């Protein structure tokens, strides 16, 4: 009997090459200086300036220089601005950059000249000698400056407003006016970034014989890069193939495309008739890729005595950087996913998406959700504090209940579809989480510790994540005549273990040993139709598409073997790679033999294929060898296109300790409960959660892009940008709940982003619990927390109501 693979902790098939140093990342495709020319980019050192001259004279003397391109060298569609990838009606002024700056630069790091050398060293030598003259303009840095709009980033965007959007459900003003209690407060969240260990990289080679272009790029969307390259370089789509080989992490930044370098590298390869590569360095990744997270929130909430939210009014200012190639996806997600597992009586969210003279902002794992969850969870804690209720009681009072699914929020989600949750069990998740951290006894533990001078606190963060957004993905499954099962899907992989998880699905659906299954992702030669890997969608979208494709192959195998074995199709099953008669396993036919028979041949190419030739086996002389509705080959292709997203959920709890003297924050315990529907591979899902939580801890305590007032990024290196090492990450305990999605055949929901989403909220909640000081901004460093503690000692507005109440009581206490 074939062992069921779905749901098992199958070790990864991609590991064998990666642990041997045999992975193939984009920079590995060609040896720098030997197999390909190499590119370097002249980047703007100024946040906002007009380019008055570019003088390349000195660069021409540099040994190894091959070519220099500036804006004036761009022709045809490449001379136009880069695409605005996701248009939206809220966008008032959607400005995107040029592949090379035209007249003006709007952030430090913007590409001005593309320099090709025989290797990266010579390209950098030449880039250094290019003199660019500027007329300086006032930079706009940070949300307050953007909102004040004393200076404008783009004259075409008055008020620095790129987009303005409002969504409302119910009568917010009316409900606020009559609510028994109301509170208003503000939150700030700073910039961080994906910072995958491998930065961006592109390799292009032009085949002058057959006039075709092959591009390897470290991307999350190879099919879309292909379309963009074809459009921008005025090639036919069929002339371009794009491959995402091994990709060293993405986390969102590599969904942006086409990067200037993704167009300029193939442009140069075609012009020079030589392979050209571009591999960015770490500083370039900081100043010329993308960031996320920066938002300010103003929240007003009205609620009753039980903490039930009657109205929630949220105003968001979102910093999208110098250009908005990815549209308004991040603030839309913030404004919709802010609702989490809750059902406020009325809800209004208004956001402005603002231009600043800083690096572009595009989705980073979580994609606006960490900010939204921070806003909502801080709100829950405020209400609990105000009413003197347990924080979980207030949350539970607002939960959507298990019998209320599908639950329609009455809003439009990021995929343009109604925000309708498909399934979930939030009370059960909360119950599991409370058990993991002994929630109900913690308050006593906290008080006991405080009596000993130990400052500890417990925090909670709950979220719902729309995953598996459309429009579609596809899968192709083929049984070769050697018995191997080749699977391909168009979306890409950046470490999620797709080669293993998708093989698990095919092994079960087709009935073959998993060792026989080989999965290829992100290669447009193998599967040209795809959307990409983002929004925790790969398992949901391609997993289901591949399952459907495997079912097509299974049906075809049964049909062919039924004829060959003279058995009824319903009497056949496929087990361990053999089609066999149920109950009589000795009557069987190997799938590879079925593959041979599936392709009627004139010419045998080996012993096995003789059976498929015209004189080689049985056939019906009255029927065509291929029936009208059939195709040769034991292969199948299918697509999965959901009506809307499926909604995963989870809750985190953190126990922190604050050093009374230094305000250093330590995480003593970190607990996760998570529901992503049916789990394909728990080992992989837990790995995703661990990694997500680690990024969340970075965002809560360490990571911030430190721009100065001039728009210079002060910490553009791993030395200065504090990405957590092993010593900063706590042991993460995770438990799963599996509430299947009714929307897809496998009942799965996405899991990729989950871990990061509620971490800032949970840690803020824990710090607030430990210190009784309100935490309204993230990340928070020990020195900021220390300043906050000093300020709170003099200003009770910074304190929780619990602290004020208890200290009043203490004053009256004679002891």
């Amino acid at each position, binding site marked *: 009997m074939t062992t069921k693979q779905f749901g098992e902790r199958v*070790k*990864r098939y991609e*590991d*064998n090459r*990666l*642990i*041997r*140093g*045999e*992975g*193939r*990342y984009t*920079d*590995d495709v060609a*040896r*720098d*200086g*030997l197999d390909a020319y190499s590119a370097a980019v002249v980047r703007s050192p100024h946040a906002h300036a007009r380019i008055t001259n570019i003088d390349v004279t000195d660069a021409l*003397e540099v*040994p*190894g220089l091959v070519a220099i391109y500036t804006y004036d060298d761009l022709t045809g569609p490449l001379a136009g601005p880069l695409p605005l990838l996701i248009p939206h009606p809220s966008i008032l002024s959607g400005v995107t950059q040029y592949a090379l700056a035209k007249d003006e630069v709007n952030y430090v790091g913007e590409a001005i000249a593309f320099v090709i050398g025989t*290797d990266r*060293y010579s390209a950098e030598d030449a880039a250094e000698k290019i003199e660019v003259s500027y007329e300086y303009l006032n930079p706009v840095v940070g949300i307050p400056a953007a909102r004040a709009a004393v200076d404008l980033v783009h004259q075409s965007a008055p008020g620095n407003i790129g987009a303005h959007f409002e969504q409302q459900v119910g009568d917010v003003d009316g409900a606020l006016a009559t609510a028994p209690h109301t509170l208003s407060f503000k939150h700030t969240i700073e910039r961080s970034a*994906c*910072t*995958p*260990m*491998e930065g961006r990289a592109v390799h292009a080679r032009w085949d002058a014989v057959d006039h075709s272009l092959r591009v390897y790029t470290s991307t999350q969307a190879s099919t879309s890069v292909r379309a963009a390259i074809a459009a921008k370089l005025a090639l036919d789509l069929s002339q371009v193939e794009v491959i995402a080989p*091994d*990709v*060293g*992490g993405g*986390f969102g930044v590599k969904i942006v495309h086409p990067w200037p370098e993704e167009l300029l590298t193939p442009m140069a390869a075609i012009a020079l008739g030589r392979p050209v590569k571009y591999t960015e*360095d*770490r500083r370039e990744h900081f100043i010329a890729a993308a960031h996320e997270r920066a938002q300010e929130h103003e929240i007003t909430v009205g609620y009753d005595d039980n903490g039930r939210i009657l109205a929630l009014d949220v105003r968001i200012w979102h910093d999208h950087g110098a250009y908005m190639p990815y549209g308004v996806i991040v603030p839309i997600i913030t404004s919709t996913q802010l609702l989490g597992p809750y059902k406020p009586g009325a809800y209004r969210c208004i956001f402005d998406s603002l231009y600043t003279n800083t690096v572009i902002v595009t989705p980073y794992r979580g994609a606006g959700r960490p900010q939204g969850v921070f806003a909502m969870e801080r709100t829950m804690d405020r209400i609990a504090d105000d009413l003197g209720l347990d924080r979980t009681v207030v949350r539970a009072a607002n939960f959507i209940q298990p019998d209320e699914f599908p639950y329609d929020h009455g809003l439009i989600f990021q995929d343009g579809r109604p925000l309708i949750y498909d399934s979930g069990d939030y009370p059960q998740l909360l119950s599991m989480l409370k058990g993991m951290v002994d929630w109900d006894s913690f308050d006593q533990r906290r008080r006991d510790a405080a009596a000993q001078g130990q400052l500890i606190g417990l925090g909670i963060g709950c979220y719902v994540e729309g995953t598996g957004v459309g429009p579609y993905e596809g899968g192709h499954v083929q049984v070769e005549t050697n018995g191997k099962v080749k699977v391909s899907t168009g979306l890409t992989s*950046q*470490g*999620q*273990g797709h080669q293993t998880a998708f093989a698990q699905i095919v092994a079960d659906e087709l009935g073959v040993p998993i060792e026989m299954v080989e999965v290829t992702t992100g290669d447009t030669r193998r599967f040209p139709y795809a959307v990409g890997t983002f929004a925790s969608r790969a398992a949901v979208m391609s997993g289901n598409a591949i399952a459907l494709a495997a079912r097509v192959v299974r049906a075809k195998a049964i049909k062919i073997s039924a004829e060959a074995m003279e058995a009824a199709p319903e009497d056949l099953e496929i087990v361990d790679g053999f089609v066999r008669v149920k109950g009589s396993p000795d009557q069987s036919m190997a799938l590879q033999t079925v593959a041979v028979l599936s392709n009627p041949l004139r010419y045998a190419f080996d012993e096995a294929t003789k059976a498929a030739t015209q004189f080689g086996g049985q056939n019906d002389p009255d029927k065509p060898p291929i029936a009208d509705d059939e195709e040769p080959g034991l292969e199948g292709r299918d697509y999965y296109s959901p009506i809307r997203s499926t909604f995963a959920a989870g809750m985190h709890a953190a126990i922190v300790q604050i050093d009374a003297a230094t305000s250093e924050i330590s995480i003593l315990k970190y607990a996760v409960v998570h529901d992503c529907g049916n789990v394909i591979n728990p080992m*992989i899902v*837990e*790995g*995703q*959660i*661990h*990694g997500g*939580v*680690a*990024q969340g801890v970075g965002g809560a305590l360490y990571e911030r892009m430190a721009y100065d007032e001039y728009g210079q990024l002060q910490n553009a*290196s*791993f*030395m200065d940008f504090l*990405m957590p*090492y*092993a*010593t900063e*990450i706590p*042991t*993460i305990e995770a438990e799963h709940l599996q509430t299947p999605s009714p929307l897809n055949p496998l009942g799965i929901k996405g899991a990729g982003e989950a*871990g990061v989403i509620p971490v800032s909220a949970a840690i803020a909640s824990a710090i607030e619990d430990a210190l009784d000081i309100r935490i309204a901004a993230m990340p928070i460093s020990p020195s900021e927390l220390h300043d906050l503690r000093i300020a709170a000692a003099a200003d009770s507005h910074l304190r929780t109501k619990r602290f004020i109440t208890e200290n009043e009581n203490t004053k009256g206490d004679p002891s």
Partner: protein
Amino acid sequence: MTDPEVRYDITLNINGTPYEISVPARRLLSDAIRHDLGMTGTHVGCEHGVCGACTVLVDDRPMRSCLMFAVSAEGLSIKTIEGLAGADGSLHPVQQAFRDCHALQCGFCTPGFMMTIAAGIVDNPAPDADQAREMISGNLCRCTGYQNIQAAVLRAAQLASTAVPR
């Protein structure tokens, strides 16, 4: 035209094999390994010695190959990820442990971690959990959250002690 760079003929001893190459003085060891020699298992994550992705063993000690010039490595014995498995292809205990413990996702930082740990468990053949965490505390990983890498250190030490009876 400015004068082309002076090149130096050097011999790099990598994984027990001598390789003769001609490089400018400024050629980084990481670039020489990856590009002059085409051994792309050693990865470059930051080029300023912070992330540890490029870690190789130089005379059995972990070294950031992006912080060393190729010309400085002449006469030294260098081991890269390609030389970690046995000649018969059998996995080194660290490699086996990484697969067993799901200690890698995208795999980009992985060779640097594995070289660091390979040296680390020679120094300390029986690390406890804290020592395991300390052993990997100079390498950055953005995928795993380190928990499974820490477990892999312990697993690798265990496998190594069974593989080589002391």
